């Protein structure tokens, strides 16, 4: 094996190394013995020493050692690549040797992580590893953000600090391994800050948490830059210089005089000490353990218990090793029973299962097959149906993820906004376990952010104003998800001032959204805010109020085949409700017929079916026909006119009226016949052929023909446009 092959093996082991994994340690030592190169002699010794200590060490500060080992492996790698550097660095090396943080916590960032010159391009070496790193880093950064918000709530909880520390540590380690020096350096610094906090040497202040959030943002930006470089296939990546600013701030925090905290250094919750494990195993008497512990306290160095026990010949080294292993096992609390699957493959699988369901129904509904009376055949075919249905359910559920992840991301947004606007806002999350299609989760993020921002900015008032209005100073926004009959309902409730109806009416008239003399009912009025270019904010803030917000929200939700509406209680607050199907892959559809064609309406938008009588229909000059349903006057749209094909019903009281709803509006759609309800797999249709012609997609029907899924919003829009053009014509 060549030295470079050995090096690769060594790095591989180093990556997977974790405390207590003695097998890995052994392998690394073996590899090191085989590696023979003058340039690395010295570092080899250091690394050997580190690994040996790790084997002996009873895991205290295990993290630190792994970090040191990784640094050391990196150094060896570096020297192997540039042997001439080894000598040059020899002088520096004394300083560069990984400083033990425990020994010198006050020391600035260990010199092992070299200062990186500003804006020096960094290599993007192994595309696959880098890609893994990107997705991993994003996950970690997200979890850091979540935990940061938690930490602010309970600053005393050391376990939370740990859960922020760990992801930074992982990012740092992997970044270092991939020679991404800037990411490595910044995450290392942040890690140091947290380490200090963990030991109680630094207290959580709003400035500190802002600093960490800033750091996370910079790391995120760097990850994005890295991804861009990777996608472009660039051999190097150049991070922008804003890293320095955050790093300077961190240095300032680290060097600033800190409140002197008594050296309580409450260790974070640790796995059971080795001694206890040994006692449990019966390898050691309790008395013996307490004796050794007493002795340990007296000695200056505080040697690891394991080492002392061996010296005292109380237990064998083997026992200590086993105990360390056991301890390691206990530390891994959760063994994740998940596998990561390429989303593309998942989508393919789901598509194929969708096909299978269609094919199955095509076979079973084939007239020739339906004619078969053979008992055995009928049994077999029903078995096939059962299996395909179960398969479909399982594969659908594979795509569902809890909505909680998305909800939790809102914590940070609320935190940032409330701080910026000087408001006190408490975000309450409910129904986080409700599951939704993972493809939708991503699409849902932006509209949710928009609405949460809107609630923070326009809904919740300033503390003074709230006090004046007899409300608690702290405003509450409740984000809630719940499953309601095969669909998911997400509501955002704030206890703010409610919508400004007068202002909405004013704008509605100005923009021509409402032209009647008579003002509309409150529900309709409130929902005007979803119209394009509608904003009631008198002053444009950098948060919201550019008049694009709610319109964008509505469009995004409609893209997911859902709908959104709002209802406000002036002075008391506002509720936004989003209704969504559980998945975008399958839609619960109502099959309707016009002439010889069949169309699918999303059941989510169907309010009820009405057989109208002649007397229910009224015709208003210039306004088309309306029908009275539950004492409401609803405009009638004939589907045959909308899609421009001949149907069999001439008059509005013939056929069936399907009452559709969207953003608080209702409309009655006349069709020849309602065939029934059916779950259909949505197929994309070439966009150029469906833009605004009322088709949202296609679906393969039971007989193998394509059925078109109608875009409910487009039906509403044509009706409104027709009205407008008629009114304009009259003028």
């Amino acid at each position, binding site marked *: 094996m060549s030295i470079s092959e050995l090096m690769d093996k060594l790095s591989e082991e180093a990556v997977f190394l974790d405390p207590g994994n003695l097998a890995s340690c052994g392998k690394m030592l073996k590899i090191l013995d085989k590696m023979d190169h003058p340039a690395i002699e010295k570092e080899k010794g250091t690394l050997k020493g580190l690994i040996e200590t790790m084997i002996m060490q009873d895991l205290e500060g295990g993290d630190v050692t792994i970090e040191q080992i990784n640094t050391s492996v990196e150094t060896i790698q570096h020297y192997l690549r540039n042997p001439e550097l080894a000598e040059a660095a020899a002088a520096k090396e004394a300083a560069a040797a990984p400083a033990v943080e425990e020994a010198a916590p006050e020391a600035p960032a260990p010199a092992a992580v070299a200062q990186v010159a500003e804006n020096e391009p960094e290599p993007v070496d192994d595309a696959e590893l880098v890609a893994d790193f990107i997705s991993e880093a994003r996950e970690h950064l997200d979890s850091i953000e979540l935990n940061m918000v938690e930490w602010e709530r309970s600053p005393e909880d050391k376990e939370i600090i740990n859960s922020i520390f760990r992801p930074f540590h992982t990012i740092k380690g992997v970044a270092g391994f991939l020679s991404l020096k800037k990411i490595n350096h910044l995450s290392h610094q942040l890690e140091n800050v947290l380490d200090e906090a963990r030991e109680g040497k630094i207290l959580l202040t709003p400035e500190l948490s802002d600093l960490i959030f800033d750091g996370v943002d910079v790391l995120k930006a760097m990850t994005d830059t890295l991804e861009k470089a990777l996608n472009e296939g660039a051999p190097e990546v150049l991070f922008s210089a804003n890293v320095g600013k955050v790093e300077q701030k961190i240095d300032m925090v680290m060097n600033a005089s800190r409140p002197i905290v008594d050296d309580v250094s409450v260790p974070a919750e640790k796995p059971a000490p080795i001694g206890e494990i040994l006692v449990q195993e019966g390898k050691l008497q309790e008395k013996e353990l307490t004796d050794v512990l007493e002795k340990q306290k007296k000695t200056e160095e505080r040697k690891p218990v394991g080492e002392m026990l061996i010296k005292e010949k109380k237990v064998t080294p083997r026992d200590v090793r086993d105990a360390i292993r056991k301890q390691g096992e206990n530390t891994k609390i959760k063994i994740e029973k998940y596998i990561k699957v390429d989303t593309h493959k998942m989508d393919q699988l789901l*598509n194929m299962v*969708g*096909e299978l369901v*269609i094919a199955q129904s095509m076979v079973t509904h084939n007239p020739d097959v339906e004619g078969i009376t053979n008992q055995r055949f009928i049994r077999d075919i029903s078995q096939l149906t059962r299996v395909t249905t179960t398969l479909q359910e399982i594969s659908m559920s594979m795509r569902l993820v809890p909505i909680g992840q998305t909800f939790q991301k809102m914590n940070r947004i609320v935190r940032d906004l409330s701080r910026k606007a000087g408001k006190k806002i408490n975000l309450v999350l409910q129904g986080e376990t409700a599951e939704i299609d993972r493809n939708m989760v991503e699409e849902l993020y932006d509209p949710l952010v928009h609405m949460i921002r809107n609630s923070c900015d326009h809904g919740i008032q300033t503390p003074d104003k709230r006090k004046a209005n007899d409300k608690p100073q702290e405003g509450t926004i409740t984000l809630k998800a719940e499953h309601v009959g095969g669909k998911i309902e997400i509501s955002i409730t704030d206890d703010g001032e409610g919508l400004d109806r007068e202002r909405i009416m004013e704008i509605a008239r100005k923009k021509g959204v409402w032209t009647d003399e008579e003002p509309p009912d409150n529900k309709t009025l409130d929902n005007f805010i979803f119209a394009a270019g509608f904003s009631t904010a008198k002053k444009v803030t950098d948060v919201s109020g550019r008049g694009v917000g709610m319109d964008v929200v509505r469009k995004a939700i409609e893209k997911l085949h859902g709908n959104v509406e709002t209802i406000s209680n002036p002075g008391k607050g506002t509720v936004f409700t989003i209704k969504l199907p559980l998945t975008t892959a399958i839609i619960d559809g109502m099959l309707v017929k016009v002439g010889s*064609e069949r169309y699918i309406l999303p059941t989510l938008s169907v309010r009820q079916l009405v057989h109208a009588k002649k007397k229910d229909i009224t015709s208003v000059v210039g306004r088309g026909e309306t029908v009275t349903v539950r004492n409401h006057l609803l405009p009638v749209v004939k589907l045959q006119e*909308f*899609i*421009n*094909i001949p149907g069999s019903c001439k008059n509005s009281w013939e056929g069936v009226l399907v009452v559709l709803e969207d953003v608080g509006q209702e409309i009655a759609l006349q069709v020849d016949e309602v065939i029934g309800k059916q779950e259909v797999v949505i*197929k*994309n*249709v*070439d*966009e*150029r*052929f*469906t*833009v*605004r*012609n*009322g*088709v949202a*997609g*296609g679906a*393969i029907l039971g007989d*193998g*023909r*394509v*059925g*078109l899924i109608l875009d409910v919003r487009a039906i509403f829009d044509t009706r409104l446009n027709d009205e407008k053009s008629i009114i304009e014509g009259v003028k």
Partner: protein
Amino acid sequence: METKASASESKATLDQFQGKYLTFMLAEEEYGLEIMKVREIIGLMDITKLPRTPKFVKGVINLRGKVIPVVDLRLKFGLPETEYTDKTCIIVVEIAFQGGTHQMGIIVDEVSEVMNVTSDELEPTPKFGVALDTEFILAMAKMKDSVRTLLDINKVLSGDEIAAMSNAAKV
């Protein structure tokens, strides 16, 4: 001199069109399609009409679970409409459009053969005397007995008319 230069230049541009073509009949004329663009040839099947689309868009079909649009090439070229026969076929082509590839079906009277067009047989598109918009034509292929029009199917199916359709709708 100049004319010679441009002649050799146009010869070079013509040469890139040599290769295999699938030929088909449309209103007694023979046309060719680059074979690389053709995915498959299928018989006529049930077509679902798309509302509010130009007449040449016949609708969408179910191609093994995929929903693809179908265009009647006769109508697209402004040729007289005829009854579909057993020989009427849908050629499924793959076209590049807006950075992605799309599958579309085109309805033709009859599929003839796959032929090899050599550079000797290629002629530049005449500026006049063709019923078709010259933009849709790659070149003409002069064979022993007939002249075939080699189509730029990408242009035919992503040209102004279809683009205008979606643009008009966007307003």
